[in-house]
């Protein structure tokens, strides 16, 4: 009897407090906290939540909670069942049969079927910026409502990784398949999801509120009641919020001072996370520019950059050295490349050999240097490079772009000499690496294509072969040769791999520790009261 009364009172109370000005009335007290509320602080504001047509961590993190992918990768990069119970690769490696769970439903109660998987994969193939993820997919056929067969034009070793986390969110066909171009579909900011959390509210630029989906196909997961992503305009306020306990997670610590301050917070757990993302920061050269067409000039500049100074002093020893196009955490990484350690003598000699002699005032060459905006590190690096390159007679004109579109336009239209940039591997080289080095991807007007206009037929061959090679050893060897050649040709100077540091308050138990870090479903974590 008493229980019923209490529920009545709570319901009445909720109705009374339901007269709100802002926010949705929610019966907070009635739900016993199972896993608590996790508040994630981030400076990355997503445009919308549909990761099927949008790349980038800003979208992937919330999308991983809202949508389920066919498989999940465990800590050892091995695929585990998730939405798909099992999968079978055909002997000729040209088709994969996915068998889905029978008990999976969307947040509106409709069952998740092979039709939705087919629709999702085709949508990603046709719209997602990473064309190479599902490029080789000819068709997806349906055997029965639980079974979809992905038919490939050629063997595609990257496909399993592509099916993990929010690289392949399974989106509902009955919502998104209405004929509207999915890229601009109005439900992108208010989707019906398939994942462990369902969307409560998304205020662009402010916050994302998600809560546990009670009919999720894993019975005792997720454990959290709620996830709130709070978006901060600048890293300073995010850091302050973490120190004050206003947020439970700091998604991306970027410099040594932040790291030091976070470590002072009692019981804070700092994690070097998400090795699968594989970011590489580099100085890219426009090889179409006559000043930089000669490989010796580019190599000279590379030799004049003191990478140790950059890593230790400028970046405060937070990150590791990048020596080639493939990130060091990848199984395909090869260290068999020219390291371009500081060597001013060699740099000067190369420039002499290339016929770039000093003029009257000692200046051999004047170049513009750009940088993707928004990074204080890059700004500092531009200044450092300006000073460093005077030692080989190269004068730099530092150019600043006020915002991303201006910079992107400049680089995509090839109106640049050199630019600092940050490009991610995204797990398998096919997804994030090939796009920069393939001569077929020289596409003026498109950012993050082969804007360096780099063309090496042997590299094209190796990449094409590696994209289809199912044998691990053979694949590693192809990539080894490719890395050696790219580093030697020096279309970019590889600088460092920025580590993703995540910080969790002490009360967060079981923080995500997989290969995608926070960009995976946060199913196992809880927040202690």
């Amino acid at each position, binding site marked *: 009897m008493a229980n019923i009364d209490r529920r009545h009172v709570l319901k009445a109370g909720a109705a009374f407090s339901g007269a709100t000005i802002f926010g949705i009335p929610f019966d907070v007290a009635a739900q016993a906290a199972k896993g608590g509320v996790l508040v994630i602080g981030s400076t990355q504001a997503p445009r919308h939540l549909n990761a099927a047509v949008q790349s980038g961590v800003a979208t992937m993190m919330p999308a991983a909670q809202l949508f389920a992918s066919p498989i999940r990768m465990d800590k050892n990069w091995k695929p585990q069942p998730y939405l798909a119970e099992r999968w079978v690769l055909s002997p000729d490696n040209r088709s994969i049969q996915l068998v889905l769970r029978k008990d999976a439903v969307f947040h509106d109660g409709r069952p998740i079927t092979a039709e939705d998987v087919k629709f999702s994969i085709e949508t990603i193939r046709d719209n997602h910026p990473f064309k190479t993820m599902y490029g080789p997919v000819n068709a997806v056929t349906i055997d029965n409502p639980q079974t979809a067969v992905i038919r490939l034009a050629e063997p595609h070793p990257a496909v399993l990784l592509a099916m993990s986390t929010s690289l392949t969110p399974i989106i509902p066909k009955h919502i998104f398949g209405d004929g509207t171009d999915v890229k601009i579909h109005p439900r992108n900011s208010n989707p019906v999801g398939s994942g462990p959390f369902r969307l409560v509210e998304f205020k662009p630029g402010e916050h994302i509120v998600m809560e546990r989906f009670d009919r999720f196909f894993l019975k005792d997961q997720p454990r959290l009641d709620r996830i709130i992503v709070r978006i901060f305009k*600048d*890293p*300073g*306020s995010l850091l302050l919020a973490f120190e004050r306990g206003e947020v439970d997670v700091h998604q991306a610590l970027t410099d040594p*001072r932040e790291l030091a301050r976070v470590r002072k917070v009692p019981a804070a757990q700092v994690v070097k996370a998400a090795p699968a993302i594989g970011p590489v920061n580099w100085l890219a050269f426009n090889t179409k520019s006559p000043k930089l067409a000669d490989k010796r000039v580019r190599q000279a500049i590379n030799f004049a950059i003191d990478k140790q100074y950059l890593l230790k002093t400028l970046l405060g020893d937070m990150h590791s050295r990048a020596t080639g196009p493939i990130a060091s955490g990848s199984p395909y990484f090869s260290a068999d490349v020219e390291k371009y350690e500081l060597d001013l003598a060699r740099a000067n000699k190369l420039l002499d050999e290339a016929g770039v002699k000093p003029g009257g005032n000692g200046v051999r060459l004047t170049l513009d240097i750009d940088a993707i905006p928004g990074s*204080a590190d890059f700004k*500092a690096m531009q200044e*450092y490079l300006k000073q460093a390159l005077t030692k080989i007679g190269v004068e730099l004109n530092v150019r*600043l772009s*006020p915002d991303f579109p201006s910079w992107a336009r400049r680089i995509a239209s090839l109106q640049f000499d050199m630019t600092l940039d940050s490009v991610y591997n995204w797990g398998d080289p096919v997804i994030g690496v090939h796009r920069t080095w393939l001569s077929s991807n020289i596409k003026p007007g498109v950012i993050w294509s082969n804007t360096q206009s780099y063309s090496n037929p042997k590299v094209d061959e190796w990449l094409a072969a590696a994209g289809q090679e199912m044998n691990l050893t053979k694949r590693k060897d192809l990539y080894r040769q490719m890395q050696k050649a790219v580093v030697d040709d020096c279309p970019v100077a590889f600088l460092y791999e920025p580590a993703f540091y995540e910080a969790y308050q002490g009360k967060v138990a079981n923080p995500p520790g997989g290969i995608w870090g926070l960009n995976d479903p946060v199913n196992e974590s809880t927040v202690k009261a």
Partner: protein
Amino acid sequence: MMQTQHPTVTPAAPPGVQVISPLREAWRVFRGNKAAMLGLVLLSCIMLLMVVGPGLYGVNAFDIAGAPFTEPFVQQQLWLGTDYLGRDILAGMLIGGRATVMVGLAAACITVSIGVTVGSLAGYFGGWVDTLLSRLTELFQVLPTLLFAMVLVTLFQPSLGVVVMAIGLVSWTGTARLARAEFMRLRHLEYVSAARAMGARHLRLMLREILPNALPPLIVSATLIIGVAILFEAGLSFLGLSDPNVMSWGYMIGANRRNILECWWAVSFPGAAIFLTVLSVSLVGDGLNDALNPKLHLR
């Protein structure tokens, strides 16, 4: 506002009486105004620092002068500390004034030029000219000032020239209305009608007879506009929408906007500089107002 007339022809004085020109009279009043003199002194100091400071100090504001986030008043060579990149704040303060004040002056020039031209033509000619120009003024008045300037600057590359034009384009309507009111009032004065009757040409009349008399409120208005333009440029720079290759006080605040809690000096000092400059300009402007309009001695 009540105005006094300053006829361009000084009436012949009876013998033995000293004639003080209106300009000297104005200066006398100004000099006696303590606040105005304070403003003038302050302004002169700022100008002086701006002009000779960077040369004397000799440090390039864009160079990395030391470790980032160095606190002020701690190190010998870095009196005002460094910002998040390690750039010398004092160097920035000295050279920053130039861009800030130059933009303020240039923008004020544009504002006044457009405003006086439009307003004088409207007020003098009346009729359809007035209607047309007043409608134009209304149109520009409806445009949101800061927003529209932000749009202009972003769309057309944030160089100093664009910033100056943008500020000028959104600020001229106030001056236009003032000029229009003045020219309308002065057009109907007896001696102007007389001159017209004698066949004087419009342009000559406007420039030589009316404009000098309309000057006092316009000068005061122009002074205030300089202050407004400085604040405007500072605002645009703060938002990151000014020329990134020019060190101005607003730029310093904007560049360090993301670190204000750790690097409060990098934003507080340039802000104080802007404040003092605008304050001194306002004091001078007020003083001019009192001096050129003696009937307003209502302190």
